[in-house]
């Protein structure tokens, strides 16, 4: 696969919830290693778009190909595809009945048949990477939001995904904890991970994003580099949106 052929290919995708069009005719190609930040007002379909990439949401029409797998192809095992696509949620969603370490090792042990010693070693490496190795044996309820989110990132990374999806990973955090999570995400970006992030953190978007995708009303209205996007937005609705948040 050449470096230019997209690892995620979203073609003319629409998604209806009953009568509501959460996505209408969205197309977006994302190259391996690319960092895409999705921005837009509430209800514009950002989460829905992100969640179609690992098929947490089924699509109504169109086509999505992830790492060569057509998600609507009946012969494709969606669980195999999901192992390649990590996801981080706004609400962390750690498993409360498992320790931090077990949260991370559960999937590799059960899904990849990794033995416990290897999985523990890998989990320790990942916890070290996100900076909370000392919390390995603690239950999630004992952690701050920022720490929980970093564990959630480590948990997703434990499956060695090729793609990481982030849905407003810092929106539920107290301001003083946002930095620690963004730091981890920046680190991940530097390592060359393909990342699709829904976030309104402008600093992060400017520093990391190759492209910024602006959505409104279930449509992509503008795709631009951070530079262009923030300094010289083209679409009137982008301009209006930026005026409101800046």
């Amino acid at each position, binding site marked *: 696969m050449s470096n230019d052929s997209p690892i995620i290919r979203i073609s003319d995708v629409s998604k209806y919830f009953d009568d509501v069009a959460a996505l209408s005719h969205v197309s977006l190609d994302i190259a391996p290693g690319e960092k895409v930040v999705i921005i837009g007002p509430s209800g514009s379909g950002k989460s829905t778009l992100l969640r179609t990439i*690992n098929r947490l949401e089924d699509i109504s029409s169109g086509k999505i190909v992830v790492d060569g797998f057509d998600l609507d192809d009946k012969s494709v095992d969606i669980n195999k595809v999901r*192992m390649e696509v990590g996801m981080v949620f706004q609400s962390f969603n750690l498993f409360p009945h498992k320790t931090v370490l077990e949260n991370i090792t559960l999937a590799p042990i059960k*899904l990849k048949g990794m033995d416990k010693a290897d999985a523990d070693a890998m989990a320790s490496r990942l916890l070290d990477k996100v900076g909370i190795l000392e919390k390995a044996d603690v239950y999630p309820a004992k952690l701050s939001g920022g720490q929980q989110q970093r564990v959630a990132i480590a948990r997703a990374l434990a499956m060695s995904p090729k793609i990481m999806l982030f849905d407003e990973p810092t929106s539920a955090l107290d301001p003083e904890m946002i930095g620690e999570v963004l730091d981890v995400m920046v680190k991940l970006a530097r390592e060359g991970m393909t990342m699709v992030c829904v976030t309104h953190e402008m600093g992060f978007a400017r520093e990391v994003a190759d492209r910024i995708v602006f959505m409104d009303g279930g449509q992509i209205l503008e795709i631009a580099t951070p530079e262009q996007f923030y300094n010289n937005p083209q679409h009137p609705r982008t301009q209006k949106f930026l005026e409101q948040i800046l």
Partner: protein
Amino acid sequence: MKHQGKCVVEETQPIVIDVGDGAAIPKPSDKGLVSAWWLSFIGALVTLGCLLYFKPNPYWRIFKFIPDGILVTFQVTVSAIALALVIGLITGLGRISRNKYINLVASTYVEVVRGVPLLVQLFYIYYALGRVVHVPDLLAAVISMSVCYGAYMGEVFRAGITAIAVGQTEAARSLGFTRSQTMYYVILPQAWRTILPPVGNEFIALLKDTSLVSILGVADLLRRGREFASESFLYFETFTMVAVVYLIITLILSKLVSFMEERLSHHVKR
């Protein structure tokens, strides 16, 4: 009939007042109920003691006659609850299944069982079973009880499972767990904590309801009492004894259940 003794007040929901039908489980917060528990328990023990001491004839004779029945009552209760748990798990999973036929079967089962009085069900299943296979009375009783309680247990399981936040499922699915792996590794291990206390209630309710199987000829506590009474004609004395023994058993069990709930809620807080 069933449902847990909770009073749920939510903005959009009407107020739910539900008294449950197990024994009243004494929560430490409910001072009135705790003292009522002690009053009943000590009262029951004192009554028992006095009867045995001051009127050993006939009470001592009755007392020696019924322990076989207590054993049978426990046997039926424990086996029926075990089987009902299995049926309940399957039913609960069926009720939330995305397969609409499985869903329909499970829901219909629950609906039908809830709509027919337990005693009628006992007779029905007992005689229906009898037409197909010959099973011992005790087994027939256990099956009938568990078919009935399985439906209620199914609702308990369903409620326990659906109470787990959807984010848990999404997190697991996004890692690559299948639906059933998610249920097994992530949802059920969390749900049992919500499920256990109502199961405790069901256990007590079931124990009391097993008195109905005496009608099927199973020699449980009540049946032993009836046997004694019909020989001795001491109806009042016998049923006084039977009632006191039932009361003591359920009081002890409800204390155990409340103890278990306590332990569990500490466990959840960690």
